[in-house]
């Protein structure tokens, strides 16, 4: 019982973190339909900025979001405007040729980080890194001992906040609506007078800013080295597909489902098998719910 509950808590918190990483990807993939293999590297950049701010000025990683998000936004805009757009513009036999581009960007980012910061493993040893709340501390006679980690919970709360904020932005503001229009139908949006080019640039910037902020929330929990991007890019793919392209709510639901599922496989099947579960879910989602989890809700609403 204790194991199950603790596993569920762990899964939920992990899901929040995953959702954070997936949010940026779901925007970028939803609007531009490109597979961005440099996603994890952008997160790495965000983490390094947070790390520098922490080690040079003792700025808390959570606070550094204020700096990281605009910085990554700019970086994203530059990439989109000067690198990705020129490639998307031309007629190529396979549209997937942008993959090379993102791989190249990722390679350069990771290598530049190695040159600047060396390949050392870095971390921001904040004082609250291992702080946790325990059930037995609050309730002496508790039948079981559960714990809730402070930095993990903070990230989870942030994930919820960011998701809601993003949801409001996308559904209530003009820019947000234009982004969604661009995602749904590029040509129609263009005809309706949406500045789709600008929207693409903004989206890529926004996606980068989101994943950079995810890096800031990640660094108190994890650690940092130039080559860490790859595995998080993969996780972001899974969440994007699971949640539904371009859906913020989907990303957080997808993240939580994935987190809980992974934790359960890790506990009851063995942690070595957890990645199989992750990718099996991925393929199942691709085949059976191509619109992602949000599409399930939508369909039901229509049927009514």
């Amino acid at each position, binding site marked *: 019982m204790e194991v199950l509950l603790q596993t569920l808590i762990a899964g939920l918190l992990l899901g929040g973190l995953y959702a954070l990483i997936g949010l940026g990807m779901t925007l970028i*993939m939803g609007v531009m*339909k490109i*597979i961005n*293999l440099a996603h994890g590297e952008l997160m790495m950049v965000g983490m390094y900025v947070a790390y520098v701010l922490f080690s040079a000025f003792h700025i808390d990683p959570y606070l550094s979001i204020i700096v990281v998000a605009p910085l990554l936004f700019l970086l994203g805009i530059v990439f989109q405007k000067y*690198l990705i757009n*020129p*490639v998307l513009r*031309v007629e*190529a*036999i*396979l*549209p*997937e*040729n*942008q*993959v*090379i*581009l993102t*791989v*190249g*960007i*990722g*390679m*350069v980012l*990771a*290598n*530049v980080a*190695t*040159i600047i910061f060396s390949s050392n493993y870095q971390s921001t040893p904040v004082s609250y890194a291992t702080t946790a709340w325990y059930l037995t501390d609050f309730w002496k006679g508790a039948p079981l001992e559960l714990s809730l980690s402070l930095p993990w919970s903070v990230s989870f709360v942030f994930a919820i906040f960011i998701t809601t904020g993003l949801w409001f932005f996308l559904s209530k503001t003009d820019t947000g609506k234009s982004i969604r229009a661009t995602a749904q139908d590029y040509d129609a949006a263009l005809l309706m007078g949406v500045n789709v080019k600008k929207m693409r640039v903004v989206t890529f910037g926004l996606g980068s800013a989101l994943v950079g902020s995810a890096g800031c929330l990640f660094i108190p929990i994890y650690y940092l080295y130039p080559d860490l991007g*790859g595995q998080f890019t*993969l996780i972001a*793919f*899974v969440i994007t*597909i699971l949640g539904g392209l371009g859906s913020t709510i989907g990303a957080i639901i997808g993240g939580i489902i994935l987190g809980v599922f992974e934790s359960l496989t890790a506990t009851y099947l*063995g942690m*070595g*098998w957890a*990645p*199989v579960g992750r*990718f*099996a879910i*991925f*393929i199942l989602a*691709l*085949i059976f719910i*191509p619109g992602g989890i949000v599409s399930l809700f939508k369909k039901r609403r229509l049927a009514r």
Partner: protein
Amino acid sequence: MNKYSPFLLLGLLALLPFVGLSSYMMHILILFLMWSVIGIAWNLLSGYCGQVSFGHAAFFGIGAYTAGIFYAKVGISAWWGMPLSIIASTIAALVIGYICLRLRGPFFALATLAMGMILKVIAENLTDFTGGDIGIMLQQRTWVDKTGYYYIILAIAAISFFVVKKIVESKLGYYFVAIREDQDAAESLGINTTLYKTIALCISAVITGIAGAFYMNYMGYIDPKVVFALHDISIITIMVVMVGGVATYWGPVVGSLIMVMLAELIRSIPKLGEAHHTFFGVLLILIIIFMPNGIVGDFRKFAKFFGVRRAQR
């Protein structure tokens, strides 16, 4: 490029060992040919048939592990892996195709990517069968001298080159291109798209699998992280073809030249040190921005850029 040039190049390459190349050069040439083979295989599925696979490491790994497992568990020479891998990769292609080919575009790509990762984790966890993370090591490789390996991989490369060329020039090839250009239109013209996509996947998988079996024999050591690698195998495969030229006969060969030889060359520049990745990454970005269809695909631009007159066709 006239129709004799492939034979000319083949003849040249066949004569190359007689020049007395160093073992190092032979190694690079072998890697170059091996990557050409994988590129040619990927090009058939993705370049011509339009099904972009992000998981060719799956077939490469299956080929390598077929050779490895038969060597380690059955005790026969790892060279048997080559014919045996044909069966193994066909089965794998049928299974993966059944699952993934119902998806289109980027979704197919992501599904194959996941397939590659799943196979990697399975290979890591079926310790009794695959040796897990310890991998499989050949006690002794067949030859010290590389000429034998060179001719084997050259033969594989030549055969796959001509097979793919034949297929692309046949009716099958037109079906493939039709599917790539517009799957629904192809379907409405009466082309059984699922069947032809599966055929493309199977041929592609078999060629890749043979390359994998060759890798086992040549390197003498495999483990899941090496042969099922996402970046080092699957993505590099894509880059080989994309940089060289998608849906061109020579694309994979030229791409492999760049991805293997130029990468090695850049890596060897002494002053560059660990910055060679940046250099190479920038090069890739430039290639794709200025030649989105790859070097062969956009050869005219390439030639113009270097001030070379367009080659006579």
